[in-house]
């Protein structure tokens, strides 16, 4: 436990010292703020385009448009930021050899993986909460929030998908031991999941659905059972990838 806390503390220190923390928090607060602002301003922007001779019907934006924008921003730009910011988490340590000094002092290998996942998850959770808080505050400022059915599932889904990306980074980083391997694993996994979503009926089970696809829950067009299989598969994948990283790291030559 002592090693876990010491190494996690080092991870947080590293995030601040390498500006990873500030980039992550800054961008996610921006995504959160932008969502209702964009929803509010889109009709104004379209109107300001002037008389182009085209008929464009624009309905008055609602809080649901703000949330649509929120899921769009978090599910695309947000996940891209997450992939880039965390790509060096494990791979940098292995390619630079910074773990050797600590491992030869009796640091448990599974503690390294557990600390990495823990520290990354705390940062991601904090960033996502700030993003949601900023989005919620601005949405409440512009509109009546109203009822948000199945809000917990709808808003926790992108967070869980983010956890999957973090676990993939740790897995890919451990497997390949360099930043390109880590990035390729993550991007490859996202491309594969997007390809699979083309199959009819697959989206119910596909974790990528959780990345910005849960708006129907809030609008009432979807029900939780449409997303629960994907949530379970995503959670299982996070656990399996973390366990796989530990098994692989235990066998890794240093």
């Amino acid at each position, binding site marked *: 436990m*002592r*090693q876990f*806390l*010491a*190494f996690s*503390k*080092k991870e947080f*220190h*590293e995030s601040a*010292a*390498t500006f990873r923390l500030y980039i992550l928090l800054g961008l996610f607060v921006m995504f959160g703020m932008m969502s209702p602002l964009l929803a509010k301003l889109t009709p104004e922007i379209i109107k300001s385009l002037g008389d182009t001779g085209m008929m464009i019907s624009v309905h008055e934006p609602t809080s649901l448009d703000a949330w649509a924008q929120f899921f769009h921003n978090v599910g695309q730009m947000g996940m891209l930021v997450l992939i880039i910011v965390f790509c060096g988490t494990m791979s940098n340590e292995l390619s*630079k*050899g*910074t773990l*050797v*000094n*600590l*491992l*030869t*002092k*009796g*640091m*448990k*290998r599974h503690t390294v993986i557990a600390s990495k996942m823990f520290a990354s998850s705390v940062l991601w959770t904090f960033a996502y909460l700030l993003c949601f808080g900023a989005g919620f505050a601005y949405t409440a400022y512009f509109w009546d929030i109203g009822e948000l059915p199945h809000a917990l599932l709808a808003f926790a889904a992108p967070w869980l998908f983010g956890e999957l990306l973090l676990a993939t980074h740790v897995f890919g980083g451990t497997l390949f031991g360099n930043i390109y391997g880590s990035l390729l694993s993550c991007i490859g996994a996202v491309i594969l999941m997007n390809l699979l979503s083309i199959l009819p009926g697959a989206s119910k089970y596909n974790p990528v659905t959780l990345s910005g696809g849960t708006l129907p829950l809030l609008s009432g067009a979807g029900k939780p059972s449409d997303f629960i299989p994907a949530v379970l598969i995503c959670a299982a994948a996070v656990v399996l990838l973390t366990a796989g990283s530990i098994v692989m790291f*235990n*066998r890794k*030559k*240093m």
Partner: protein
Amino acid sequence: MNALDLRSVSKSFGGKRVLDDMSFSVPEHCVFGFVGTNGAGKTTTMKMILGLLKADCGEIDVYGERVSFGATKTNRLIGYLPDVPEFYGYMRPKQYLGLCAEIAGLDEKSAQPRIAELLDLVGLSDANRKIGGFSRGMKQRLGVAQALIGDPKLLICDEPTSALDPVGRKEILDILRKIKAKTTVVFSTHILSDVERICDRVAVLNKGKIVLESAMGDLKLQEKSTSFTFEFNREIATDEILRVLRENNLEPIKYETAEHTIESLFLGVAK
């Protein structure tokens, strides 16, 4: 008790046999020079002692405890200085040693004086800037400090002087000499003068086997020679030396008075 025993250790990478049925022992409280050319298998041997690489066959014991691949318990007895020690560049020396102390299981009360003691030993007490800006020599000295944080019984150094200038080399060798009383030191090198300077025992690794293992004193006395070099701790007139030799029926056919070596000149001006 031996600090380290290797028995019939072999290791191959792909089809290439790097270590072939290698055996040697390191007695306690000595500085053990592990000599070999580049690529002879010195680093591989050290990594196997640390459980970072798996031996294909053979046994390795540290203070009588068997080493196993992965998280080996014997590492609590060992301090390791890699050939190029890598640190977190954003940390300062005290922060880094603090992390090492926590990982090694030192309590906070004993960690602070230990860190101060080690920084003093390696001459980094006043270096409070980020490690990223350290020179190679400073990093190597910090490497020694981190290796010693847990007060190890055995210190393993992988070519600690190879990449350093003469001043840096001398500093590292002086540190190793200082800690000899408390810690057994195994250090690999291909710089033979370093071995002569501080080692008590030496093993030579060639083509995966130990081809020579001996106490330094025995090694030097093993063979008769027609040529010798002596160094005295005071100035002596050449006539005085020749007189002593003749009194003992030894007539040199050639003698030279040593000029200042480039190294001694360098050390003199680079202080």
